[in-house]
């Protein structure tokens, strides 16, 4: 999977970050684990070639509508976008480490199982 935090330019979460660690705890592999920085600008081409099974997006508001960039033609090149395998996590629970980390891990695991039964 891959964490996408911004779409233009695409910014993803790399290794050595809290989210990457959470992914490891729930047994999901961040395809950008090898990038040392906590977050990095990458090309769409790199996302397509690393072919994550699903994209994880953080957002604060619980608005039901998916973000517009998922309907942009260049993002349709990403398999997870075409197959609508998108997981939304709440920014307040997942953006920073804290005493609710255990809650975050359980929530993350539940969401992944929903998306990839």
């Amino acid at each position, binding site marked *: 999977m891959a964490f996408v*935090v911004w779409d233009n*330019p695409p910014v993803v979460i790399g290794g050595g970050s809290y989210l990457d660690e959470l992914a490891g705890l729930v047994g999901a592999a961040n395809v950008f684990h090898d990038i040392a920085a906590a977050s990095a600008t990458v*090309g*769409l*081409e790199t996302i*397509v070639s690393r072919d994550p099974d699903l994209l994880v997006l953080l957002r604060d508001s619980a608005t039901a509508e998916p*973000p517009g960039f998922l309907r942009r033609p*260049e993002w349709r090149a990403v398999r997870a976008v075409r197959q609508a395998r998108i997981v939304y996590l709440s920014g307040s629970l997942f953006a920073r480490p804290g005493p609710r980390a255990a809650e975050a891990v359980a929530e993350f695991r539940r969401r992944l199982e929903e998306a990839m039964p």
Partner: protein
Amino acid sequence: MRWLGLMVVVVLALALAVVLGPAHVSLADLTTSDIVRSLRLPRALLAFLVGGSLALAGAGLQALVRNPLADPSLLGLSGGAGLGAVLAIALHLNSPWALPLAAFAGALGAMALVYRLGLVGGAELDPRILILAGVAVGAFTAAVTTALVSLSGAAELRNAFLWLWGGLSGASWDSVLLLCVYAPLPVAVLLAAARPLDLLALGEEPARHLGADVEAVKRRVYLAASLLTAAAVAVSGVIGFVGLVVPHAMRLLWGHRHRPLLPAAFLGGGALLALSDTVARVAVAPRELPVGIVTALIGVPVFVLLLRRWTAS
């Protein structure tokens, strides 16, 4: 010979942009690869069109205001585009095309304001006032944009600045097609102004005596250059340097006559941006550099080299 050389550079830049990339695609798979077809090819073409547009607009503006420092970013359009984009994000406009459309609307708004201010001295467009108005409008919109971002504190607005610094990651066949439909008119208007721009270089009074309709030329060149820049900024953010230095580099090779200079600037600007974007994509792969850094890193040495050759001869 010079034209042949320039064409070779253009073809080479486009070929490299298609062949090279962070993902490995073998030469045999080039025509069938999805990555090449849906990502690399449109991105290479968009880089070429945007770079060409910015350089052509820059060449036209430098002639119009008779100032070698004139650059599309001095017109206040970038500031307007940035304000439009940040507003679209702040208002949570969620359509896939909201950002480029809002940026384009912002650029047009800034253009109208600058144009109106350029006319304050009377019915004649004063190029010096035009540049000052551009700088003033640019500073004002930048201030409003920064205020919005710093007051909101939302992470997505900070990310909007990434977009503002320019990049071609929004490239798709749709954006290429859009520019292919939109750009020919302003490009044609600028190319057709080559002869009157030569006359304008002599000064407005002499140009008038030589039969140029100075007023009409000034308006046409300003509007065409602005419309071209607005579209470039809308699809790719603010990419600096191409519009400033490519016209000068081409002037060193082709001289001051605008008939050869303007098309050469378009081709040279396109080649520079296509090349720069390739470097931006592969230099630190899997990460990507902002393309504006690369245009300066490649363009400045080339420019210095040309300048030395030119001053030596």
